[in-house]
């Protein structure tokens, strides 16, 4: 099992994601300017401020050369995880539904938050139980998940909402407390919280490992088997 972590200029949590993924498999960095996914089994688009995010978070990164291959990989059913800025990039690339708007506070917010697993099945939350709580930090300025109401209804009905902020924990005003959503095919997942920052007992929580474990289990059962 080999993870590939995309590195844009301005990526900040790329090495963090690399280290976290390395706990459950092999992991390599994928350079933004190369049309090459190096044969990885799953792609992670990490957190940070790709290209400075001066225009709109993720708006430039989606046009990076490597994103051509990431989109092809996703269309072919490959697992793609977008964390924070990566979530924003995947929304901009229309690989995920909805959009991320400025936090209601209009300020950057760092906080350890409690998440509720909505769906304890599938490639990204298969190692979790539905209803389980995960303690994972958020840190962002543009994390308020938004979609029109009918779209939100559809996402919920089709089970695409995988993670919610637990009651009272919503840090950014996300609609319906949505913290992470996947696409219809369930192979692309984006979330604002940072599971790669909840993998080391010294850091307080190891709940984030379950996301990476879920991906590994899925790839080993369905792709490499």
């Amino acid at each position, binding site marked *: 099992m080999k993870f590939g972590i995309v590195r844009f200029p301005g990526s*900040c*949590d790329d090495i*963090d994601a690399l280290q976290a993924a390395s706990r459950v498999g092999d992991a390599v960095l994928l350079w933004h300017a190369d049309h090459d996914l190096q044969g990885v089994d799953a792609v992670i688009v990490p*957190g940070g401020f790709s290209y*400075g995010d001066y225009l709109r978070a993720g708006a430039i990164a989606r046009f990076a050369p490597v994103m051509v291959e990431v989109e092809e990989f996703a269309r072919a059913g490959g697992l793609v995880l977008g964390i924070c800025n990566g979530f924003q990039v995947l929304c901009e690339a229309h690989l995920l539904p909805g959009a991320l708007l400025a936090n209601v506070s209009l300020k*950057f*917010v760092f906080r350890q938050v409690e998440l509720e697993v909505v769906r304890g099945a599938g490639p990204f939350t298969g190692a979790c139980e539905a209803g389980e709580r995960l303690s994972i930090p958020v*840190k962002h300025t543009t994390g308020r998940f938004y979609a029109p109401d009918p779209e939100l209804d559809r996402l919920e009905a089709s089970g695409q909402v995988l993670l919610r902020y637990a009651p009272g924990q919503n840090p950014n005003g996300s609609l319906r407390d949505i913290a992470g959503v996947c696409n219809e095919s369930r192979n692309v997942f984006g979330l604002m919280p940072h599971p790669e*920052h909840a993998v080391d007992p010294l850091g307080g929580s190891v709940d984030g490992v379950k996301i990476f474990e879920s991906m590994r289990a899925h790839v080993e059962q369905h792709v490499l088997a």
Partner: protein
Amino acid sequence: MSNSTYSLDERHRQLGLTDDEYARILDRLGRAPNDVELAMLSLMWSEHCGYKHSRRLLRRLPKEGRHVLMGPGENAGAVDVGGGIAVAFKVESHNHPSAVEPFQGAATGVGGILRDVFAVGARPVAVLDSLRFGEPSSSQRSRYLLDQAVAGIGHYGNSIGVPTVGGEIYFESSYEQNCLVNAMCLGLAPHARLIRSAAAGAGNVVVLLGALTGRDGIGGASVLASAELGEGDEAKRPSVQIGDPFTEKKLLECCLELLDRELLVSLQDLGAAGLTSAASEMASGGGVGLTIDLCQIPLREADMEPFEIMVSESQERMLCVARPECVGALLDVCERWEVLATTIGRVTDSGRLQVLHRGNVVADIPVSVLIDDCPLYDLQPVPPSSDLYGGPEAVLSGDESPADTLLALLGSANLASRRPVFEQYDPIVQSRTVRRPDEADAAVLTLPDGSAIAVSIDGNGRRVACDPRLGAAEAVYECSANLACVGAEPLGLTNCLNFGNPEKPHVAWQLTEAVEGLARACEAFGIPVVGGNVSLYNEAPTGPIFPTPVVGMVGKLPSAARAGQMGFAREGDTIALVGPFEPSLVGSELAKLRGQAPVGELPAADAAALRVVHEAIRARVRAGAFRSAHDIAEGGVAVALAECCVAGGLGASVRLPHGLDPFGEAPGRAFIVSGPAEGLTGFVVIGEVGGEVLRIEDLLELAVCDLREARDSGLAEWV
């Protein structure tokens, strides 16, 4: 030599040079400087670049230590933390820019200190900030400065991916006009990657890396940093630089890769006085000369004058020297990182800084004149004959119950929870952070071998105003105490001396006394000063700021897994009070709330005895004997106990030693520790952890949730 003979105009005065200094320039050059040269000299001889009022005094600070790899004089100091790893660190001020334009002033303060650290080859791994503003309750300006400075720090640090792991904020009316924004950065480097700024090798190539050179920050060092604030500061806004963390992120990664590939001879960041200072310091360090062709420099505005190019403080630029055969590979690395790189000159053996523009020599100055001939002044210290600072408006009458007094202290701007501020910073990026803000007295970051470094920053201007010598020493005690609480041994410190106008005798006295206090405390604790910064002229028309020496201290602990924490951890644990503790209300937070001026005698300290206490705390934290450790600082033992309760979500029942003022202060002297009784032998047991109430016998009884609410609401109101 008569000034009038040479001084045909007053150009030099507008640039901040005195008539005597101008005469000295004429003497050293043997001729009148042209406009470009005068602009360069005025900056290099400014207080900000030349340290002319502080350099002699700073010699008093101890700089030797067995862990020191690089001392003062480089972009940042560095100490050895074992395993072939060095920690480079430095604190620097960006006070006046922040007072004029707080968002960009604070942001570029962070950007500047980050460059200082990667200029020595270290990857920045942590930022801390020391901030001072006027009273938020009564001053809209102070709330604006706080809001914008915090946003600016977050903007830069968060975007570039360096965690902000700690810091401190105090609010006092003396900072109303002249806020303080000090930023500290730590970086990690393999020993072999540490690089100095000294240029070497005639014929080697000088390459400018990073952003375009524009008209921002022209004269920042002399106009802003080396003069008092006053009317018309709005007009100084063009002297404040604009930060671009994305460009600096690329520059950072690019520079570290250039060093890893051994493509550089030397590296220097462009900060105050821009290219002039960077080129002068590189040449001076190596005893060589440099020739720079301004026509090669990529400009943001094509019509910039030569002097503007030479003094521009445009951010996100670095200057490096490379061997000619390495330049091709160097440019390839820069292209990959999308970093602009331009050959702008050569190293020479002339000992002169020569500047060309369109084929003409527009400046030609011996490097020694720029650096070594900067005049150094002895201060004329005189103790103030009357109190310099009045008392603040009283918030408490003194008739309140102990419980109400404690709640008022916890909710005061200076002691309230910093959460509303630190939640705007990313403290965990890079995945090294083991102790986040509010979890322990110092931030703790892991190293690859499982050991860790700890860092703390501190400086209470109110206490330094009472007694500059002891107050400054207390900043060292406090940092050392903070490190002891997580189990870290101090390796070195950096300081930023924020004072008023040193040409005034009472400010000179404050500065002299404070440096003496710092020096003695460092000597007693065996902690070397590896670098720092001086920020003078922090005055408004209403008077000087509190004298504010800020100390940033770095230490090491053998095991990140054993790092101490602040909060009470388990029901039934024994609580002990450790240390020689004879606190008083002089200079205390309670005295402030009661409207008292910062005057009086601070509690004496026996530094040698304190060092032993700190070592004992450190040893037991490392041994795992404690489940919590917290030093008793502002607000005294009552506030310290409340903080331990809130952090751990547990109550406590204690009985204080007879006669101990629960709100009296003596920072860095004593600790509240908790743990199994057998780990606390030899200490004064005062009580037990448990329940949901803090009960101090014969004094007060308060629910932990009420303590938390008081502490949480204090600052949230203003942020």
